[in-house]
């Protein structure tokens, strides 16, 4: 069964700061995310969601416990290996889109391919293709400022997908969008981004999109307090 796991965290502890200013953001988190699964991470503000996906995505080092992504533990990788692993295996979607403002939509989407060593022109061509698939065919050459929030998030999703990563992490992908646009973005994520060999971990506090989840992990005060198979199962 463990071969089926995209993410496997056991007793993950993360503390920010030192001495008096110490904040224990993760207090022993256990979490499993299966391949092909859309896992939502929910919970009140400050409970450690962002910290947890940062650890899972390999952009933040945790202090104790183990966190494996497809059997690889970031703590056992060198800095270089970690960067390389992220480049190949992780896709990112942010609340604030975080597109590079000077690049066109296609150029933005092409960035992960270029990071992985593809020639620019080929990467941009592929990016334009993918933008077509997310309904952004005529915005290929637009700059981020020329796009609406929903359109920017589509571009960001294409960017998270383009290099075919095995794990996509999204932090509050819909909270900057109105309800309808957020809904469409989630539909897109679920239909295009999810796949048999790919897992999605989405942090959100937007209960209206809980229905898109395969499973929902509820966090509170640095712990996972419940993993539910549907919104109805969640205790309030």
């Amino acid at each position: 069964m463990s071969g089926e796991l995209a993410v496997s965290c056991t007793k993950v502890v993360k503390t920010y700061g030192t001495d008096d200013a110490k904040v224990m953001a993760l207090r022993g988190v256990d979490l499993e995310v299966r391949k092909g699964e859309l896992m939502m991470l929910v919970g009140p503000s400050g409970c450690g969601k962002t910290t947890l996906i940062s650890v899972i995505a390999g952009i933040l080092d945790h202090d104790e416990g183990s966190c494996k992504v497809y059997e690889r533990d970031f703590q056992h990788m060198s800095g270089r290996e970690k960067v390389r692993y992220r480049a190949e295996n992780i896709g990112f979607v942010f609340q604030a889109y975080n597109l590079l403002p000077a690049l066109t939509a296609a150029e933005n989407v092409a960035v992960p391919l270029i990071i992985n060593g593809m020639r620019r022109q080929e990467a941009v061509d592929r990016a334009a293709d993918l933008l077509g698939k997310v309904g952004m065919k005529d915005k290929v050459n637009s700059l981020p400022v020329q796009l609406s929030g929903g359109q920017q998030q589509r571009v960001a999703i294409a960017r998270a997908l383009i290099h075919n990563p095995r794990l996509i992490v999204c932090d509050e992908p819909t909270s900057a969008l109105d309800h309808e646009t957020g809904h469409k973005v989630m539909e897109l994520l679920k239909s295009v981004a999810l796949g048999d060999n790919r897992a999605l971990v989405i942090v959100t506090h937007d209960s209206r999109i809980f229905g898109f989840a395969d499973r929902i992990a509820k966090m509170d005060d640095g712990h996972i307090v419940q993993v539910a198979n549907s919104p109805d199962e969640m205790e309030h």
Partner: protein
Amino acid sequence: MYYTALKMLMGDKSKYLGIVMGLTFASFIMTQQPAIFVGLMARTFSFMTDLSQPDVWAMDPKVQYIDDIKPIQDTELYRVRGVEGVDWAMPLYKGLLKARLENGNFQTCNVIGLDDATLIGGPPIMLEGKLEDLRKSDAVIVDIEGAAGKLARTLPNGKRVALKTGDTLELNDKRAIVVGIARTTRTFQSQPVVYTTYTRAIKYAPRERKLLSFILVKAKPGEDLPALTKRITERTGLAAYTREQFQQVTMNYYLKYTGIPINFGTAVILGFIIGAAIAGQTFYNFTLDNLKQFGVLKAMGTTNGTLLKMILLQALTVGSIGYGLGVGAASFFGYMIRDSVLAFMLPWQLLVLSGVAVTLICIFAALISIRKVMKLEPAIVFKG
């Protein structure tokens, strides 16, 4: 990623322009000021540059620079001619004499007396008349700057007309007729230059026991010049310098005894510091503004090495553009003032130096930014 780096750089127009302008300013100051300095320094010995025939200059040992006239006796000329290895040796008179203008005013002139027979040491370019015309009685040749400037006549209606051939002057109460107008390279002295023969020059000059200013020496072909200067000094007790040595001696005097190098050095260093400060600050601000973008690239798997190269590329790009504009502006400045009293000389060594200085500024600007980006936690990408 280099394309991305350049796009990032130029995407923020106002910062981009700010950085380029800072570097343009620095390049301009660091090129223009030393160019004026070099121009001025070259002017200190331009009289020698114009006077290209002699290999060696002999003079009183106490002479410190070209305009420091310490006359020697005429007989020294024959002694120098007797030194082996000397092909020829000619007298040169150089001195400041008062010219009386038509309106009764006096003007000090830099009078040059040339060997009567050969006229060696004459002006490099004749604009009117011929050098040989100096052999006519009372003949003098005046430089164009002086003729059109300080020696110009004022008509009754207030208009000024340049001195021209056929006009007369009085040098120390003795008549001089202008037979030619010459162009000379501007020197450190601002007086009009008046050429005449040696014999006539010492007639114009106040009566003194010693009148010979310099002895101009041509070495025999194949003669070792430093050895020749040594021999002249040994035999005659005069100081003897090759042309380059005398230029150097003259320039050193100005470097040592005038505030000129300090003034220009200060301007250059200020230009460097201000340029570095402006460029460094704006570039650093640019990096800070884009820190989130660098963070996103880092999270997505861009290595520190690549980020470093991206930032260096950005810095060197603005550096090249700023350098190009600054040097262009400095050259344009030099072109605009080419006929004015300002000096300007832009040898390639100077371009290399200011180029190196600008590169240093850019690397400095890049380094402080790179430090910031290297230490950047990619986890900031998930922060608000």
